[in-house]
């Protein structure tokens, strides 16, 4: 199976898991059967992992046929994803949304001439002139 096909599979898993970054494991410590069939799923906290496995089950058979054996899934919590893999995770999330950003931009450019309705009119806003604040002073004071 080519690298492109494997990456496409990982992308499908990512879409199934609500856009979480997913990749085939790299630099996994230790030697074990299935090392080359190990998927890493990021931003998956323990309370979410059961649900994510349930979603993954829909793809598991197809995946295992494609890669030639059982797929091993390693979950990384948000905290560990940010601590150890922030570059990869940030880039993967940015890549995830770029398609929609570009497609909407193109579509909207062709629609703008016929845009009649508007949801409102915007107006300029200003940040505080001195040091930036840390929250609204108009809200009731109920500190954490």
């Amino acid at each position, binding site marked *: 199976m080519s690298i492109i096909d494997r990456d496409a599979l990982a992308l499908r898993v990512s879409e199934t898991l609500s*856009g*979480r970054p997913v990749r085939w494991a790299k630099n996994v410590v230790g030697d074990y059967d299935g090392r080359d069939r190990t998927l890493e799923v990021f*931003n998956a906290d323990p309370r979410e992992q059961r649900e994510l496995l349930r979603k993954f089950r829909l793809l598991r058979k197809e995946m295992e046929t494609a890669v030639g054996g059982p797929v091993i899934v390693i979950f990384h919590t948000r905290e560990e994803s*940010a601590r150890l893999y922030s570059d990869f995770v940030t880039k993967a*999330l940015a890549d995830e949304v770029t398609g*929609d950003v570009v497609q*909407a931009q193109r579509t909207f450019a062709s629609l703008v001439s016929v845009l009649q309705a508007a949801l409102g009119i915007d107006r300029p806003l200003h940040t505080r002139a001195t040091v930036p604040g840390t*929250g609204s*002073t108009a809200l009731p004071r109920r*500190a954490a």
Partner: protein
Amino acid sequence: MLLTAQRVVSPGRATGVNVYQFLHGPYVWGRVPDEFLPDSNPGELVGQWLEVPPGENKIASYLDIVLPDETSSIDVLQRLASLKYVVQPVEPQTILYWDLCWIRFGTTVDVRMRATELGALSGHILLTLTGRAPVRGAGQSL
């Protein structure tokens, strides 16, 4: 915290997406209280990233997300990336509570484009927060 993205069209027909960030302060909630919603009090504006200078622009679509200021940045980014999988924007305006967040999405575009537009607006916020947004025209950020 309120994160807002607005797709706007200027009187001269320039288009773009403007992104704003407001802070509420260090509050904790189980569900976003009404007084923290944008129509009640958006909070304090601390950042704006402008593709089209505001003032008299028509707003064609918008996305508002309210979440605690203390939310970790990785969680904010993941929620932005997951939004299009969580929200099914069948109606022109969609409002929902999602865990500790509150979401409001409104658009004038056709129903076939709504999911893409939702993904695009949340994507603009995500790209802005990660410093990857292609900001055009006058801009100001923290």
